[in-house]
């Protein structure tokens, strides 16, 4: 390690408490094996200048505020090393250079250095950085293993596996570590024995479950016809069955289906369906009225029946994960007036009984008219999870009006659904229930313990039952219908769904699977002898290795495979499997190999290496055949070919690799789940909103990438890419449910635009209950301002408990009063306070909400104004965003560096300054367009040379 004690020796030995935090950053540098850069002690001349000019300067002007005890702005100078190739050392020196150069440091109130003293230091720093850059260019060891995402994507594309399948395997490997926010840097991608064991296991699994799986029995579709509905209860003779009480009183009456047994006898009257035209036409839907098995007026018992026994059994017995296909012959009417729906949708759910999570869902829009039905196909990927106990259950519903809804209005139950119990029976129930609650609350006031109250109520059940049964008996004898249509509903205007049949088959397995046909390219019938094995590997190896394979290597493998076959008496197929398993665990597959020449001179990447670099950058997976072909023909380095390939790759669906993996890490979307929003306090934060809000940033990025828009849009934009869920939430018109995510123009009064208005981001930067402006500030500085906030020094105190009802801004101001806190927070907090108009779930507010404030007129109005580090003031969010735009160079540079880190798979620091400058200049000429950035990065020396 060059000289961590270089300066400290000059300062004071006692102050060298090995403060762990800085020790670690220096230690990173000195872990030579992993930082891949060699230590570089200063030349004699350099050291002399340092000793004579630089060190004394630092000691006089810097160290007394930037040491381990006082760490102003979180920056230590007392232990700064002089190895410019180590870790962040060069970046730290760069910061000193910048601050002296701009006259920001030393602070004006301190003694100032002379012009020549400052100059000497700056010159020295500049020279060292230049020298280090030159050296760094000659070293760039970058062999690394595929990260988790890349590994599974590569398996997927090597064997043509289903995307859902590989994603469900991802948890088998532990998540990867990150460097500078991205999981693509070799230093954080370790390999250990358990990882290796997992690779072996996964290879075995993929090969035996998918590629070489035995031929499955052809899946036989199973079909049910609606008109074959079986009526469950018509065969009962007209005797009234007594209700037995099974639970607290309320359950007798809520929900209505608890009247099952008596209702079986009641002439029901109104129904939620009609049998017509050879099928069933439903008038009511919603979550309570399932299709396939339901009652007359709701989903259970009561005069209804079931017509989905075959399909039901099919799902009940399903054990295999995979793609399932359902076909419905259906027609629909979307309704008129206030009950109309945008589209009639069938919604399907599959899961383990009792679980509300881990449901597989599917849906299909039925847009054929009632009298001209069509076949509608719904495909769902199901995870039956046979290892979890519980039966498989399914639910098929549609978005019609609800049948049995009711509300309690002023103490009375009011039936608001399509079907009502007749008023007399309803009133009876109402009265009985009210009396029940009245007794309960009286007893509670008297102080009777809860279990005594329960007993008392239970004892009344017999009497209540009798009253109730008597009333029902009267109805039966009089043959009066117990259920009528709610007069509030106009039956002609209701949405309707007509179904004739429901068919299902699956799992849909292509046979033979594409992966298999690619391997056994000469067909299933050719016997797998040594000759065939050779040919199989001759085709497989170059794909697995992602490059051409020398004949010796092929022979070598062949020899091994044949020996294994002999040693273990394996069949032809098993020998091939064994060979493939070994290939999938070998370094050539697991690692992206970019061997540098042993002469330590920069050279171009080989064609195949470039192909891999391109495909792992833009697709997070192996190169496709086109790329490999061009590489084989030595054409990839031609700038025009390269540029057109990049354009092709961005337009390819596989570009989701870049979109998901880059954006997911840049905007920290992968960590959004770490914030648990309190659903009690924020009832509008539904699961659907959450899902959409997590998807929004990806869709926005995709739009900017694929349409080649300016990256400045991330700071602020006049459009959003949102779905109906978000459009409703943000108060924006023009998005229909069928549109999925689409681009919509917005206006200033919407208060959105760019990354900072996205609900997902804003919700993430909270503690689940209230906003965290400091976290928001740190996020902005990291993602949009190219100056990640330094972590608090380990001796930062805990925040004391706050007693008074202060606004968040007031509280933050209190903790900025300490000089040591203020040194970082003065420049940090304004970035987050500016966003206070967005509450803890990203909704717009003008007044303080949360934690004692209700956002009403009594709550203080929000003050979000502040000052940016260079002095630019802003009074509100709009001015803040304007300020960010005016200083967009921070963002442009930062974003470029992040994308460079991602593309080059190494940290980008002070030694890359010129390269970054070059890209930024080019971007400015090209209106900062995204594809320009991508092309510029690929055109850099760093991307093309090693």
């Amino acid at each position, binding site marked *: 390690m060059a000289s961590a004690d270089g300066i400290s020796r000059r300062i004071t030995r006692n102050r060298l408490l090995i403060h762990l935090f800085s020790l670690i950053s220096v230690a990173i540098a000195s872990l030579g094996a992993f930082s891949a850069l060699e230590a570089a002690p200063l030349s004699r001349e350099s050291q002399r200048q340092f000793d004579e000019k630089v060190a004394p300067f630092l000691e006089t002007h810097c160290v007394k505020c930037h040491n381990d005890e006082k760490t102003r702005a979180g920056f230590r100078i007392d232990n700064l090393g002089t190895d410019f190739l180590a870790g962040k050392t060069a970046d730290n020196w760069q910061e000193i250079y910048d601050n002296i150069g701009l006259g920001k440091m030393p602070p004006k109130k301190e003694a100032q250095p002379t012009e020549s003293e400052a100059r000497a230091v700056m010159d020295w720093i500049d020279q060292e950085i230049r020298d280090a850059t030159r050296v760094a260019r000659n070293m760039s060891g970058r062999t690394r293993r595929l990260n988790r995402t890349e590994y599974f994507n590569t398996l997927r594309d090597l064997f043509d596996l289903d995307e859902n399948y590989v994603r469900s395997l991802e948890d088998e490997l532990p998540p990867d570590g990150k460097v500078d926010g991205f999981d693509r840097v070799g230093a954080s991608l370790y390999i*250990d024995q358990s990882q290796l064991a997992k690779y072996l296991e996964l290879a075995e699994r993929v090969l035996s479950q998918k590629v070489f799986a035995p031929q499955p029995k052809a899946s036989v579709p199973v079909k049910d016809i609606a008109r074959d509905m079986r009526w469950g209860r018509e065969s009962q003779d007209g005797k009234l069955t007594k209700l037995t009480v099974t639970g607290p009183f309320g359950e007798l009456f809520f929900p209505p289906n608890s009247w099952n047994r008596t209702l079986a006898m009641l002439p029901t009257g109104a129904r939620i369906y009609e049998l017509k035209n050879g099928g069933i036409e439903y008038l009511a839907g919603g979550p309570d009225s399932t299709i396939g098995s339901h009652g007359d007026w709701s989903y259970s018992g009561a005069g209804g029946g079931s017509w989905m026994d075959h399909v039901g059994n099919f799902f009940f017995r399903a054990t295999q994960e995979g793609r399932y296909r359902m076909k419905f012959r259906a027609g629909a009417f979307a309704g008129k007036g206030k009950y109309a729906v945008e589209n009639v949708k069938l919604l399907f759910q599959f899961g383990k009984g009792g679980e509300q999570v881990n449901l597989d869902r599917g849906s299909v829009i039925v847009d054929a008219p009632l009298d001209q039905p069509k076949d509608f196909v719904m495909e769902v990927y199901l995870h039956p999870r046979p290892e979890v106990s519980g039966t498989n259950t399914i639910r098929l519903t549609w978005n019609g009006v609800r049948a049995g809804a009711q509300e309690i209005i002023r103490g009375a139950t009011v039936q608001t659904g399509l079907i009502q119990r007749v008023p007399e029976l309803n009133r009876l129930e109402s009265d009985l229930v009210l009396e029940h609650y009245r007794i309960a609350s009286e007893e509670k006031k008297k102080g009777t313990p809860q279990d005594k109250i329960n007993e008392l109520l239970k004892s009344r059940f017999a009497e209540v039952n009798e009253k109730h049964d008597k009333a029902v008996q009267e109805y039966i004898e009089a043959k009066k219908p117990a259920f009528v249509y709610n007069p509030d509903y106009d039956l002609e205007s209701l949405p309707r769904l007509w179904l004739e049949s429901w068919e299902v088959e699956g799992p849909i397995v292509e046979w033979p699977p594409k992966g298999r046909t690619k391997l056994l390219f000469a067909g299933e019938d050719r016997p797998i002898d040594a000759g065939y094995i050779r040919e199989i590997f001759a085709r497989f190896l170059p794909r697995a290795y992602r490059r051409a394979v020398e004949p010796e290597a092929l022979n070598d493998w062949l020899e091994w495979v044949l020996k294994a076959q002999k040693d273990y008496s394996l069949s032809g197929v098993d020998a091939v499997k064994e060979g493939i398993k070994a290939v999938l665990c070998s370094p050539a597959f697991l690692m992206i190999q970019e061997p540098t020449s042993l002469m330590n001179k920069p050279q171009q990447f080989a064609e195949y290496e470039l192909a891999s670099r391109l495909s792992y950058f833009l697709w997070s997976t192996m190169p496709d055949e086109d790329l490999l072909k061009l590489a084989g023909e030595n054409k990839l380095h031609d700038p025009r070919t390269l540029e057109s390939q990049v354009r092709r790759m961005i337009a390819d669906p596989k570009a989701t690799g870049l979109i998901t993996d880059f954006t997911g890490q840049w905007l920290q979307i992968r960590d959004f789940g770490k914030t648990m929003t309190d659903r009690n306090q924020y009832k509008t934060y539904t699961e659907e909103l959450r899902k959409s809000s997590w998807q929004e940033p990806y869709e926005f990025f995709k739009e900017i990438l694929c349409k080649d828009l300016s990256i400045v849009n991330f700071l602020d934009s006049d459009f959003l890419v949102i779905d109906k869920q978000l459009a409703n939430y943000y108060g924006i018109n023009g998005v229909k449910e069928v549109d999925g995510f689409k681009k919509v123009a917005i206006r200033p009064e919407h208060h959105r635009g760019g990354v900072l208005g996205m609900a997902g981001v804003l919700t993430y930067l909270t503690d689940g209950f209230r906003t965290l402006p400091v976290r928001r500030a740190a996020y902005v500085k990291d993602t949009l301002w190219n100056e990640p906030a330094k972590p608090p020094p380990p001796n930062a105190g805990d925040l004391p408990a706050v007693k008074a009802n202060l606004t968040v801004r007031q509280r933050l101001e209190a903790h900025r009063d300490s000089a040591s806190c203020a040194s970082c927070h003065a420049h940090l907090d304004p970035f987050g306070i500016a966003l206070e108009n967005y509450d803890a779930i990203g909704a717009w507010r003008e007044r303080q909400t949360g934690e004692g404030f209700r956002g009403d007129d009594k709550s203080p109005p929000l003050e979000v104004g502040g000052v940016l580090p260079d002095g630019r003031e802003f009074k509100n969010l709009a001015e803040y965003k304007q300020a960010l735009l005016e200083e967009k160079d921070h963002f442009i540079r930062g974003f470029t560096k992040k994308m460079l880190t991602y593309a080059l798979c190494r940290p980008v620091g002070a030694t890359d300054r010129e390269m970054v400058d070059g890209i930024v200049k080019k971007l400015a000429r090209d209106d900062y367009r995204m594809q320009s950035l991508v092309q510029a990065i690929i055109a850099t020396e760093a991307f093309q040379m090693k």
Partner: protein
Amino acid sequence: MRLTSLSHPKFPNSHTFSPKQTIMNIQRKNWQMNRRTFLRAAGVSLSLPWLEAMGANSASITSAGSMAPGEIPRRAYFSNWGFFEAQAAMPKDTGVNYTMTPTLSPLEPYKNDCTVISELRAFSGGHFQQPCLLTGLDTPTNGMKLVSVDQQIADFYEGQTRVPSLVLAHNRTPTLSWSRNKTPINPENSPKAVFDRLFGVENEETRNRRRTEMAHTSSILDRVKDQARKLEKRLGKDDRATVDQYFTSIRDFEERIKIDRAWLDKPKPAVEPLEFGKAPPEKLAMTNDDGTCMRNYLKLMFDVIVLALQTDSTRVISHFPKGEDGPVFKDRTKVPHDYHSLTHHGQLPEKLEMWAKVDQVYMEFWAYFIGRLKSVKEGNGTLLDHTIAAWATTNGYGGHGRDHLPLILCGGAGLGIKHQGHIIKKDVMIADVWKTVVDRIGMPVPKDFQGGLAKNVIKEVL
């Protein structure tokens, strides 16, 4: 030979032991040492499990009581319990007769088997920083490498137990345990999976299958090792880091296969099967908020842990039973909030009280575990006497502080631990407690132990 610091193959430059330890190590009969030496000479680097060394039938746990004190292996168990209301839980007074607090009251019967240590510190107390408990340092950023104390103990005992250690948690991330190669270890959350691995009955057919599997794996490892050698020749020295790790992985994997193959021939201990139920208990544990499923899950896991220690299937365990969330046992505590919102109490006394009530229920599991350990006889004492079990957390007040941390050190009386009731060790790093554990295990303190954070041992308990 193994326990003498100077000649340990893994710690050639280690420090000398304290006198107490040396005494502990010496009580070993000569004929057993020779037997080990013989086995090593015969090419099998496997030391006999101590039960068998004593002639006791290692397949039966009922004869656990018939061994000499010096032979009984020293076990360590580490746990992290996530969020915890420490303000109310820690006793106000110190000493062996401290006043029990409601939260700690389930430990009343074991008051003399535990030492409650308060006011400790960890490196980092924030969300998701739990890995710093056993490693000393913060979770890895920018390529920082960590190793945890339980894995160091596992390495110390390498090969002597069927599995080197158990890494258990309710969730896959974050993990508490980091291997000697500074890589994280994916925890196991299924008690049944652990049980099957340790005690699942195998017949000759399954054993043969496993032998074939191992043979195949070994030959694949040979093959890829070959590939890696060829690759290495073409790489400059800066590129070698990844390939070096690859070689290390292969070597470790081969070692593991060797050890596993030797253990394959040894019959597993026969234990009474546990009732795991049809649904995986770990999946149900978090879904049921009244806590019945969590209760079942924790109990099962602790039962498996006790069996594992009792049968010497492993000697070191790291366990992360509860993190930042969990059920609040509504049926008992009647708390209307969920656990997460309890930790955002804003200093409201009702919420703090509720939080403490929930913690008391969790403490009952700890008491259950200690009670089980105490109920197993071993030598002249119990399994608890030969196990140091640590209850700890890195989530300080409100989950964000790394100070005022409590730790409950239990057991180990047969290893020289003297319990002191409640002691306050203000601003002492938890790393010091681990140094104490390592000392009692009888292994030399590894270099850079706990990132250099461990200063001294907790002398009060020694």
